[in-house]
């Protein structure tokens, strides 16, 4: 391997890393926006809701209970052709109920609406 190809390889990896970081950062930002879908986030609560991939939606909450203990709950909604199943930390998958499905669907749509609204100023130049 020549010195030039080594440099090229390193640059390529750095570039790939930069894109991966940007992608992950975009999800983080979406997650924050997604947390507002449910209304005001109570003080001391960290709430994030985001689309992880085409089949997976994540609802993540962190809060302190009455005794001041840190609590965390991550719910993973898994979209399958015939329905949505959810799994919480350490629990097996189970189908969601009708009301939860309705709320999830509204949340998904609002999530996309909000993110599109947030991104509009940044992407306005691209759309011209």
């Amino acid at each position, binding site marked *: 391997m020549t010195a030039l190809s080594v440099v090229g390889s390193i640059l390529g990896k750095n570039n790939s890393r*930069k894109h991966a*970081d*940007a*992608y*992950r*950062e*975009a999800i*983080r*930002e979406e997650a*924050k*926006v997604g947390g507002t*879908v*449910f*209304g*005001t986030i*109570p003080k*001391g*609560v960290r709430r994030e809701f985001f*689309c*992880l*991939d085409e089949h997976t939606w*994540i609802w993540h909450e962190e809060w302190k*209970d*009455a005794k*001041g*203990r*840190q*609590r*965390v*709950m*991550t*719910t*993973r909604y*898994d*979209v399958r*052709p*015939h*329905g*949505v*199943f*959810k799994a*919480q930390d350490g*629990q*097996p*998958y*189970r*189908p969601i109920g009708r009301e939860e*499905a309705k*709320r*999830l669907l*509204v949340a*998904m*749509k*609002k999530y*996309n*609406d909000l993110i599109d609204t*947030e*991104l509009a100023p940044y*992407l306005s*130049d691209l759309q011209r």
Partner: protein
Amino acid sequence: MWTLPVLVSSKEGGPQRPTLAPEQIEAVVARFAVRGPAAKRGERAINTQFPGVSDEIAATPLRDGTRGAATVTTGNIATGAVAGRERPAYAVVAEAPAEVPSAAPDSGATGGETAAVSASTNAVDEGAPGLPPAVGDPVIAAQQKVEAAYQTGAQTEDRSGHDLAA
């Protein structure tokens, strides 16, 4: 809300316009190609699971008397509702009433302590004062969990239409 580190361009003293770095634009475009189809896929799945849900949502009257979106203002997926989707993000944040901490999705309750009890399996150790919670970045954690599940075959799903969890 969007706090990506952005470059701000200003042409000849004109108004400043936020711009994204090339890799950020790529990421945003890539995400657009994921989250849009994901929502549509979710809607199809939910309507297969519960026929007519989309119609019910569309028939929900809006605050202004028109129809087409959810109207409730606060809550969460399992125990509450989703903020009215006809309003922009800033309005939702500014006007939505305060809400209690999340409850476990299947508890039917909205109290924080109830949530804590129901979600007891999810409790984490208390960290030292001033330190961030023990849990890491939820994005990375979620990615790792999904990847691990796929790799180990622990996930009981078969995307061809069968599942073991039902």
